C-alpha cells in the first residue's frame, strides 16, 4: 500500500503533476489574504481570566497603551526649547488617532505659600522670558507627582505621553501612528540633544519591519545553506534541486492555506520557510540515499524504476513515521494557550505534513524524469566522505573499546547539564525579542534610567461602599501598598490618589516638610475640588469606590516579576482587608504571567510528545524496549540543550521553549531510520553486533549529512532580527549536532542489546495460512504469535538442487519449510536412500537444534524452497527479548521430539 503511494509520482506523472499544479494555484490565491499579527495580544492566553478585569480597569482608569516621547536637552528650560516642545505637543495632538497628549503644557499644579493658593497649569503656554521658564522648572521639579513620570531629577529630560485609540481597528494603525509621530519628531530632532518615541506603536511597527526583513533574509539564506551542504556531501545537483522544489511548493501551500483559513503570521512565522527548506530536505536526503542504493543493487535495464521501487520499499514506512513524529513535534504546541505559539504551531504542523505529502509525490516524479539510470560513484563518495567517515571511525572505536564508559559518561554529562538546566528562567517580555543593541531597546533603557520604566501595571482596589476613597483610612491603604512597593525595591515608581492628596496637603500647609495625608474625609473632598476630574482619571473612579495605583517598572525577567507580584498580592490581602477587593492588572503582567504557563505548557507538550513517540515506536517495533530506545537519542540532546540554556543564561521564551519538542520530533527521525535498518538486517543474520554495525554504516552518512544540514539550516536563524528566533536557531542547531552523538554513539551500544520486529513486517507478511496451521512447530499459537515467531527466525531461499542440510556436518539449527519441496536423503557409502519428502509446514533438523550432533542425512531442494531457519544460539538470545514466543516454540519442539520418540518406541515394539 505504502509502496503504491510512493510510486504514484513515477507511474502517473501527468496526473500527479496536474494535481500539484492545481493545488498550488489554488493555495497561491490565498497568499494575498495573508495577515500579519505582531500585536501584544497574541502573547496573552485567550482564556486568561484577568483579561476581563484588565479591560474593565482600562475602561475606568485609561489605557496603559501609551507612547512616551522622550526629550533630553541640557537647556530644556529655555523659552526657545519650551516653545519647540509646545509646537510638537500641538502637532501631535492634531494627528488622527491621537486621543490625548499629556505634557508639561497640560499638567496642572497647586502651590501654597503664605496663605495663598495658586492652582494653575504648569505652563499654560510657552514662556516668554528666561525667568518664567525657570519658574516653571522649579514648579515642575518640586512636584513629586511629576518627577520620574514627566521630568528627570535634574530637569534635563521631559516626557510627553501620547495615548492613541484605533477607532477603526485598522491593520496598519500602529505603523501609521508610529510613522506620523516619527515624522513630527524628525522635524524637531535638531532642536534637542535627543528625542525619541517608545511605545506600543513603535514596538509593533518594528516587529513588523523586522518580520519582513527576516522573511527576505532567512528564506534565501536557508536555500544557499541547503544547496551548499547537499552539494558538499552528496555532490549531486538533483539532490539539491529536489528539496528546493518540494520546499517551494510547501511554502506556497502553507502560506496560501494560512491566508485562506485566516491564521495570521507572527514573529515566529519568519522561520517557517527556513524550517520547511531545512527539515524538509532531510527526508529528501534519505530518499535520495535509498534511490542511490537501489541503483547499486538493481543494475540493468530498468534500474531507475527498480531503484525508485527500492526506495519506496525501504524508505516508505520510516519516512511516513518520521513525517509523523516531526509533525507531532510541532503539533504538540497546538494546544498552547498563547496565540503566538499556537498560530506558529498550526502553520508549522501544516507545513510539515504538506512537505511530507509533497515530497512523496514530487521525489519519484522528478527521479522518473531526471534520475540517474546507473549507480555512479556518488554513493561510494558519499560513504567515503571524509567528515561522516571520520566521525564514524571515532565512534566505532569508542563503541568497541569503551561501551560502558560511554554510557556512564553520557549519564554524567546529562546529569551535569540537567543541573545547569535548574538555573533556567522564563521571560515573555516583547522587548526581549529584540537584541539589546537595537535603538528601540537603547531608547527604552534611557527612559528607564532618566525617568521610569516604560512598563506599567495597575493595582486596583475596590470597595463596596460609595466614596470609600474619600476616607483617610482607605487612602492610607493606598499609601501603605505604595510603601511596600518601595520596600520591594524593584519598581521605578508608583502614583496614586494618596500621592495627590499628600501633595495638596503639603502645599496647603505651606510646604511643611512632612506630607501626611489629610485627616478628615471632608478635607479630602475639599482638597480634591482643586483638581480636575481629568487629573484623577487614572487614579480614582468618579464615585470614589475604586482607586488605582499606577506602577512603572523595567523588569524583563517574567519569573522574577511574577514572584514579586505574588509577594505583593499576599501583602495587599492584609492591607486591603476583607471588605475590599483588589486586582493587579496590566497587559505587561498578563504577558509575563503567560510565561509561566509557557513553562508548564512546554513540560506538558514534551511529556505528551515523548509518550506518543514511545507508544508509536513500541507499537511499530512490537516492543516497549524499542519505544524506550527510540527515546534515548531524543532525551540526551534535550538534556544537553536545556543545560546549555541554563549555563549561558538563555531564558525560556516563546522561541526557545519550542526547541525541545521540535528537536525531538526531528532527532527521532534518524533513530527511526537506524532502527528500521537494523530490524531489516536482523532478518538476514544471527549476528546482532554485525547487524548494528551494518545499520550504522548504512545510515551514518545520511544521518550525519541531514543533521549537519539541519544544524546549518537552524544556524542561519541567528541572523534573525528577533533574539528569540536567533536563540531558537542556535539551540536547535546545537541540538541537531548533539543528536548525531546520541544516534550514532549511544544508540548503537543499546541496540546491540535488543532485538526488534517491525509491526509492519508482521502485518505485511504473505504466507499461506494452511502452511502455518499445518506446521507442528507453530501449533497452539495465535496468528500474530506465529508471524512474530517467523520474523525472529532467519528467512532463506534455496534453488532446486541446492542442499538445505548436509549430512555429517554439525549445525545447531532447524528449518521450517514455507514453500517448495525437499527430499531427505541418507547416504551410506555410495548408496543413497530417500527417507522422506518434506512439504510446506514440515520441519527438519530439530535434533541438531536440541543437541550438537552430526547431521544424519542430506536435505535437498527438489523444487525452489523458502524456509525459515531457527538457530539455537539466536533463539537463546531471543528468549530474553521474546520470552513468550521462544517458550512456545521450545514447547512445540519438545512436543515434536516427544512424538517422534513415541513413534520410534512404537516402531521398535512392532519390530
Amino acid at each position: 500500500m505504502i509502496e503504491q503511494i510512493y510510486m504514484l509520482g513515477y507511474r502517473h506523472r501527468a496526473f500527479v503533476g496536474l494535481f500539484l499544479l492545481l493545488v498550488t494555484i489554488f493555495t497561491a490565491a490565498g497568499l494575498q489574504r495573508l495577515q500579519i499579527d505582531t500585536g501584544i495580544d497574541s502573547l496573552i492566553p485567550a482564556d486568561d481570566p484577568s483579561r476581563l478585569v484588565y479591560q474593565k480597569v482600562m475602561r475606568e482608569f485609561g489605557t496603559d497603551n501609551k507612547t512616551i516621547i522622550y526629550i533630553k536637552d541640557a537647556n530644556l528650560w529655555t523659552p526657545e526649547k519650551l516653545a519647540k516642545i509646545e509646537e510638537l505637543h500641538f502637532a501631535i495632538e492634531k494627528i488622527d488617532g491621537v486621543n490625548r497628549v499629556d505634557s508639561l503644557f497640560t499638567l496642572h499644579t497647586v502651590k501654597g505659600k503664605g496663605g495663598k493658593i495658586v492652582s494653575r497649569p504648569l505652563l499654560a503656554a510657552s514662556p516668554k522670558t528666561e525667568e518664567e521658564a525657570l519658574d516653571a522648572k522649579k514648579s515642575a521639579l518640586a512636584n513629586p507627582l511629576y518627577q520620574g513620570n514627566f521630568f528627570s531629577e535634574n530637569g534635563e529630560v521631559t516626557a510627553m505621553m501620547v495615548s492613541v485609540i484605533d477607532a477603526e481597528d485598522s491593520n496598519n494603525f500602529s505603523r501609521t501612528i508610529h510613522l506620523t509621530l516619527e515624522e513630527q519628531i524628525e522635524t524637531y530632532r535638531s532642536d534637542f540633544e535627543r528625542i525619541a518615541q517608545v511605545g506600543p506603536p513603535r514596538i509593533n511597527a518594528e516587529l513588523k519591519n523586522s518580520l519582513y526583513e527576516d522573511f527576505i533574509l532567512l528564506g534565501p539564506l536557508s536555500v544557499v545553506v541547503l544547496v551548499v551542504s547537499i552539494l558538499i556531501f552528496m555532490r549531486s545537483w538533483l539532490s539539491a534541486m529536489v528539496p528546493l522544489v518540494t520546499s517551494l511548493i510547501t511554502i506556497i501551500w502553507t502560506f496560501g492555506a494560512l491566508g485562506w483559513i485566516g491564521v495570521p503570521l507572527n514573529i515566529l512565522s519568519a522561520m517557517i520557510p527556513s524550517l520547511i527548506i531545512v527539515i524538509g530536505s532531510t527526508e529528501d536526503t534519505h530518499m535520495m540515499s535509498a534511490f542511490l542504493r537501489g541503483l547499486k543493487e538493481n543494475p540493468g535495464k530498468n534500474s531507475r524504476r527498480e531503484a525508485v521501487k527500492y526506495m519506496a520499499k525501504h524508505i516508505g514506512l520510516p519516512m511516513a513515521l518520521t513525517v509523523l513524529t516531526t509533525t507531532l513535534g510541532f503539533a504538540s504546541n497546538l494546544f498552547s494557550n498563547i496565540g503566538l505559539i499556537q498560530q506558529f504551531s498550526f502553520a508549522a504542523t501544516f507545513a510539515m505534513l504538506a512537505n511530507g505529502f509533497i515530497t512523496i509525490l514530487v521525489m519519484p516524479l522528478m527521479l522518473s524524469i531526471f534520475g540517474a539510470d546507473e549507480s555512479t560513484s556518488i554513493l561510494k563518495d558519499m560513504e567515503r566522505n571524509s567528515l561522516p567517515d571520520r566521525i564514524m571511525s571515532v565512534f566505532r572505536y569508542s563503541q568497541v573499546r569503551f561501551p560502558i564508559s560511554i554510557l556512564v559518561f553520557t549519564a554524567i554529562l546529562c546529569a551535569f547539564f540537567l543541573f545547569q538546566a535548574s538555573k533556567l528562567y522564563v521571560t515573555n517580555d516583547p522587548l526581549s525579542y529584540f537584541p539589546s543593541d537595537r535603538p528601540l531597546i537603547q531608547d527604552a533603557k534611557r527612559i528607564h534610567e532618566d525617568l521610569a520604566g516604560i512598563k506599567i501595571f495597575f493595582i486596583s482596589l475596590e470597595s463596596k461602599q460609595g466614596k470609600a476613597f474619600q476616607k483617610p483610612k482607605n487612602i492610607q491603604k493606598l499609601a501603605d501598598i505604595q510603601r511596600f512597593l518601595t520596600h520591594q525595591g524593584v519598581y521605578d515608581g508608583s502614583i496614586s490618589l494618596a500621592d495627590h492628596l499628600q501633595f495638596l496637603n503639603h502645599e496647603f500647609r505651606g510646604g511643611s516638610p512632612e506630607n501626611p495625608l489629610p485627616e478628615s474625609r471632608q478635607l479630602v473632598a475639599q482638597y480634591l475640588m482643586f483638581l480636575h476630574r481629568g487629573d484623577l482619571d487614572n487614579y480614582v473612579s468618579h464615585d470614589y469606590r475604586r482607586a488605582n495605583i499606577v506602577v512603572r517598572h523595567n523588569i524583563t525577567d517574567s519569573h522574577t516579576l511574577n514572584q514579586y507580584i505574588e509577594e505583593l498580592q499576599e501583602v495587599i490581602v492584609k492591607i486591603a482587608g476583607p471588605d475590599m477587593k483588589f486586582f493587579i492588572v496590566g497587559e505587561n503582567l498578563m504577558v509575563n504571567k503567560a510565561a509561566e504557563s509557557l513553562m508548564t505548557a512546554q513540560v506538558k507538550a514534551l511529556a505528551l510528545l515523548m509518550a506518543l513517540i514511545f507508544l508509536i515506536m513500541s507499537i511499530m517495533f512490537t516492543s516497549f524496549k524499542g519505544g524506550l530506545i527510540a527515546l534515548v537519542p531524543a532525551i540526551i540532546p534535550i538534556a544537553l540543550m536545556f543545560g546549555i540554556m541554563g549555563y549561558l543564561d538563555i531564558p525560556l521564551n516563546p522561541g526557545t521553549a519550542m526547541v525541545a519538542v521540535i528537536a525531538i520530533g526531528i532527532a527521532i527521525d534518524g533513530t527511526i531510520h537506524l532502527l528500521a535498518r537494523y530490524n531489516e538486517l536482523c532478518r538476514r543474520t544471527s549476528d546482532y553486533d554485525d547487524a548494528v554495525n551494518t545499520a550504522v554504516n548504512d545510515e551514518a552518512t545520511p544521518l550525519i549529512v541531514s543533521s549537519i544540514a539541519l544544524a546549518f539550516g537552524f544556524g542561519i536563524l541567528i541572523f534573525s532580527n528577533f533574539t528569540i528566533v536567533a536563540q531558537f536557531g542556535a539551540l536547535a542547531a546545537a541540538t541537531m549536532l548533539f543528536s548525531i552523538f546520541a544516534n550514532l554513539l549511544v544508540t548503537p551500544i543499546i541496540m546491540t542489546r535488543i532485538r526488534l520486529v517491525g509491526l509492519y513486517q508482521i502485518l505485511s507478511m504473505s504466507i499461506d495460512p494452511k502452511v502455518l496451521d499445518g506446521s507442528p512447530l507453530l501449533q497452539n499459537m495465535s496468528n500474530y504469535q506465529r508471524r512474530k515467531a517467523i520474523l525472529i527466525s532467519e528467512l532463506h531461499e534455496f534453488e532446486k538442487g541446492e542442499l538445505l542440510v548436509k549430512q555429517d556436518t554439525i549445525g545447531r539449527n532447524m528449518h521450517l519449510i514455507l514453500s517448495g519441496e525437499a527430499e531427505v536423503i541418507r547416504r551410506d557409502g555410495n548408496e543413497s536412500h530417500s527417507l522422506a519428502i518434506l512439504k510446506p509446514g514440515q520441519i527438519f533438523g530439530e535434533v541438531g537444534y536440541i543437541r550438537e550432533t552430526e547431521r544424519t542425512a542430506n536435505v535437498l531442494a527438489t523444487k525452489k524452497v523458502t524456509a525459515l531457519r531457527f538457530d539455537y544460539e539466536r533463539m537463546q538470545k531471543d528468549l530474553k527479548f521474546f520470552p513468550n514466543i521462544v517458550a512456545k516454540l521450545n514447547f512445540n519442539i519438545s512436543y515434536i521430539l516427544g512424538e517422534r520418540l513415541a513413534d520410534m518406541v512404537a516402531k521398535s515394539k512392532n519390530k
Partner: protein
Amino acid sequence: MKLLLRSQLFFLLSLLISLSHLQECIGFTSSETTGAEIMEEVDKRHKQFPYIYEEQSMILVDRYGEQDTRKARRYSRVEEDGTVRFLLLFDYPQEVKGVALLANREPDGKTNKYIYLPAYGEQLLESADEGNGDNFLGTDFSVENLTGEILSDHRYVRRDDREVEKVKYFVLDVYKAKNTSTKDRILRRHFIQQDNLYITLTHHFDKHRRIARIQSHHDLKEVDHDMLRANMILMENMKNQHQSLIKTSRRIFSHDYVPLEIFTAEWLYENYPHIEPTEEIDTDDPFDKKETTE
C-alpha cells in the same frame, strides 16, 4: 363705545412703541455698528442686577460621561462705587458643604479671590490664578465667565453676521483692550442673538487660536422687560473633554437675600465653622425638592 375708543387708543400706542423699537433694532443691525457699540447695548439690555441670589446645581461630566453633582448658592452684589462682590457657597455634597469662593472686583477692575475650606480651618486662602483666568474648584468655568466681562478692559471686533437655523447672530471677537492689532491673541468669540441681544454662545480660544472651551446659554428667561437670564449654562472643555453645566433652579433679585455681611470671612466662620475630622457624615441632598424660579 368709550371702551372701543380706549382699546383702539391702546392698540395705536402699542404699535407706535413697537415701531420705535423696530426702528431701534433696524438701526442697530446696520453693518456700520461697531463691536463695542453692540456690546454696550448687550450690557445695557441685560445689565447685572445689583443684588442677585441664585440656587444652582453644578453638573460636572468627565470624558467617560460620568457625572458629579454639586449644589451651591450664588450671591452677587454690585455696590454704588462699582465694586462687585461675589460669593459661591457649596451645600452639596455634604463633604464640601461650606466651601466658598469669595471674589471682589474693585472699580478699577482688580479682582481678589479667596477660598474658604471649613475642613482646612478658619482661614481664607487667597486664590491667585495669576491672570490665567483658569477654572475654579474643578469646574470648567472661570469666575469671569460667570460675572461677565468688563467692557473697558476689552476690545471688540465685529465679524460677519451669521445665521444659524434662521436665527441671526452678531459675531464679535474679543481681545484685550491694550492690544490693538488683530494679529494679537483672540480671547473669545461671542455669538449674540440679534433678536434679543443675548450672548448665547461663546468660543474661548487658547494661545494657538484653537477653540479650547465652548460656553453656551440655554433656557433663557425674561426677568425684567427685555432683560434675559439663562437658567442653564454649559461649558464644554474641548481639550479635556469635560463638561460643566450650571443649572439655576431659583433666582431672586432682592437686597434682603444678599446682605453685605455674607461677603466676609467672619460670616463664613460663624455659619460654617471648622469641621473636626469625622468619618461618617450625612449625605442627604439639601436641595432635594422641586426647583422653582422666582
